């Protein structure tokens, strides 16, 4: 598809992509709007659209991943607020918290990502 230039890395791990804990909240993360993503989805799926453009595809994936980062950053903030300053509790690892089925689906999603952006 020719938009791998913006792709983080072919070797991006599930842990890094899905921001596994323990992880610090990033206060400087750019805001992502879901309405912008939904607008692009409609544009891509519009049957009357003339030429499919890979730039629109790459923009949709970029927006989806920005939204993902924002959702997971808000999770990191909540965990930090709950446990971050505590001397009594440890911040757990995501691998301990998520079910094996969910972990497997996260891995499969990363495999699909690699194929789609090639």
């Amino acid at each position: 598809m020719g938009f791998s230039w913006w792709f983080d890395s072919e070797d991006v791990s599930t842990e890094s992509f899905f921001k596994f804990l323990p992880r610090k909240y990033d206060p400087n993360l750019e805001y992502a709007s879901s309405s912008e993503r939904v607008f692009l989805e409609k544009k891509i799926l519009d049957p009357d659209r003339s030429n499919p453009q890979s730039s629109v595809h790459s923009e949709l994936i970029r927006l989806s991943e920005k939204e993902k980062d924002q959702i997971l950053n808000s999770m990191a903030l909540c965990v930090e607020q709950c446990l971050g300053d505590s001397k009594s509790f440890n911040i757990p690892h995501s691998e301990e918290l998520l079910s094996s089925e969910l972990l497997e689906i996260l891995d499969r999603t990363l495999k699909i990502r690699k194929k789609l952006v090639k």
Partner: protein
Amino acid sequence: MRILPLTSLNSLRAISRSKLSKRDSSKVLDEIDHSLLLLKSEIVPGNTQEVQEFLEVENNDQAIVAFGRIVVELSKLVHLSTLTEIDNSLRMDMLYFSGNVVNHTMDKDSSSDHIVNQLKQISKQLVSVEHWLGE
């Protein structure tokens, strides 16, 4: 199929009750209480309708759109599952420190059902993209 994790993680405790004074124990319980209230406001099942609208994947456009939705819905599910499991662990710890069951419980069944249903929907959509890719 087991969707929710067994409590492999029973506790978030970094300390033992036997090493704490009554005053320190009370401080820890306040910490847990504060955290549970924070979690309660964050653990909101719902607002994840997009994958409910299953998209049949037969071309590249549909595959890209489906993938984008999967990524967003999965991140919501990771968010919800993570906080739900931390909430469960903190409740175990509160029981350990106080011997009492906690108040202001969230609707655990609703959250668990939501996680199970969402995972099924996302899985179905994921399989459709995988099939289109020839996996």
